[in-house]
């Protein structure tokens, strides 16, 4: 199976998996992040430790969970605890190494909007809201953002900051006394953005066949580009087979 067959979702899941190290404690969301975690566990990070906001700790689901509260996350988990323990003793206590978030809008500082499009009191579109995203963004030591690029999603200014990034209304995380490390990378369908010392997103990797101009055209702010842009690695046939046949055979997220 050749790499050019990899879909955007497959590439994103694979690239996100590369950010996970064996033994990392990950706060897992549903969808692509979940797939990325399961891929990492099945390949280079068998000791990845998955925690779900539903209360499952050290889950090893037998099927791809369709929600973060799927019963397959409970059966054979190492621990199942109340949500107060998840948010207080795990997240706020600083035990979470990696968090994953997506959203409807992201800006150059990694601020994410999952609340409303338009004015809060009078929104054009009402989105689901924060869930646990806000506190994950505040507390995770490393935050990975996974989103498809486009001018309506990568915006100059989020309509609403649900989950804080590196700079909010001009203030830095350090100035605000925020414990977590903030976003480390945005993994998109066109390439990967890192964050520089000022907390601004910088294009650092491109998928094969994608140009810098294409990425700039899909970004709502004048995107900074790293001096040397690397090529995103490519999922090989074995990985694609794993994703398609074993990890998401019903194509729930791919």
């Amino acid at each position, binding site marked *: 199976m050749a790499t050019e067959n990899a879909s955007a979702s497959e590439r994103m899941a694979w690239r996100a998996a590369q950010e996970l190290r064996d033994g990392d404690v990950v706060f897992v969301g549903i969808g692509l992040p979940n797939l990325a975690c399961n891929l990492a566990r099945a390949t280079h990070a068998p000791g990845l430790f998955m925690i779900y906001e539903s209360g499952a700790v050290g889950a090893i689901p037998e099927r791809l969970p369709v*929600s973060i509260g799927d019963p397959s996350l409970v059966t054979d988990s190492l621990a199942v605890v109340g949500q107060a323990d998840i948010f207080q003793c795990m997240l706020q206590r600083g035990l979470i190494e990696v968090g994953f978030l997506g959203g409807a809008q992201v800006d150059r500082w990694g601020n994410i909007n999952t609340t409303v499009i338009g004015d809060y009191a009078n929104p054009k579109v009402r989105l689901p809201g924060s869930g*646990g995203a806000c506190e994950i963004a505040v507390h995770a030591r490393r935050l990975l953002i996974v989103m498809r690029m486009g001018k309506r999603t990568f915006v100059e200014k989020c309509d609403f900051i649900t989950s804080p990034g590196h700079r909010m209304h001009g203030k830095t995380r350090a100035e605000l006394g925020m414990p977590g490390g903030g976003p480390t990378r945005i993994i998109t369908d066109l390439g990967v953005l890192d964050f520089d010392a000022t907390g601004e997103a910088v294009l650092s990797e491109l998928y094969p066949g994608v140009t810098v101009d294409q990425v700039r055209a899909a970004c709502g702010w004048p995107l900074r580009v790293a001096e040397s842009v690397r090529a995103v690695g490519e999922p090989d046939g074995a990985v694609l087979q794993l994703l398609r046949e074993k990890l998401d055979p019903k194509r729930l997220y791919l």
Partner: protein
Amino acid sequence: MNKLCSMKEAIAASVKNGSSLVIDGFTHLICFAAGHEIIRQGIRDLTAIRLTPDLVYDQLIEAGAVRKLVFSWAGNPGVGSLHALRRRSEASSPERLELEEYSHFGLLSRLLAGSAGLPFWPLRNYQGGDIAGVNPSIKTVRCPYTGQELATVPALHPDVAIIHCQRADVEGNAQVWGLLGSQKEVAFAARKVIVVAEQLVPTEVIRKDPNRTLVPGIIVSHVVHEPWGCHPSFVQGFHDRDNDFYVKWEDISRQPETYRAWLEEFVYGVKDRQGYLARLETGLLDTLRAKARVCEGVDYGY
């Protein structure tokens, strides 16, 4: 004291026009049966509180039972939107629902404060983002030791909490396993607690494994025995989530007409939970029934 009654009696005795209400359960143990009975009784002006207003809250909204929603994530998990809510919360909406919005940790903290008998709860959160800016209930306090500023939320004491559990006795001693959500916090925070049991058991069964008791009967006012009361949500050890229903719901709920038709057929058109279950596709419950994975018991001897 034997507190056993029907869902109809429990709701009629506890939920009034204008009540604040939590039907709890995080994906797990969501008591749809209670929501449907509230709709049937025509109760209005509820303040409906839940971290994740699931389909059951959307149904309460569509049926006109809800005046205000207090929440932290409103969607059809893994599928899409809550359409009754969206139709009442966007600029183009003809009528609007009052919304009070937190993150999960924030709303959970309101329940923690309520359950612990404290007037507020501190949490390290909300710096920088816009949530605190649109919710005046989120304030701050200064730590008397470090001087740092922490977010606070006020205690929440819902008038009624509805807690579905795997098993309970007639006094309301309720045992839960699998995902625990915020059921304990909700029960202790509330002014009145209705326990709904998948299985009704003698008190001796509860006493044999006291560490499993999540809600003690002393805070419970009514006990309802309602097997399958959580469908399409799930009950660990009893039945799986009906994912197909959650997926189909996206189409049913997108248009007010199909939404109302569904409510007519499955809520207004039936007398009680038995009636609802009888209208489900034949054989569906059998496909959802759990395959046993029974753990070993532990020894409480001395």
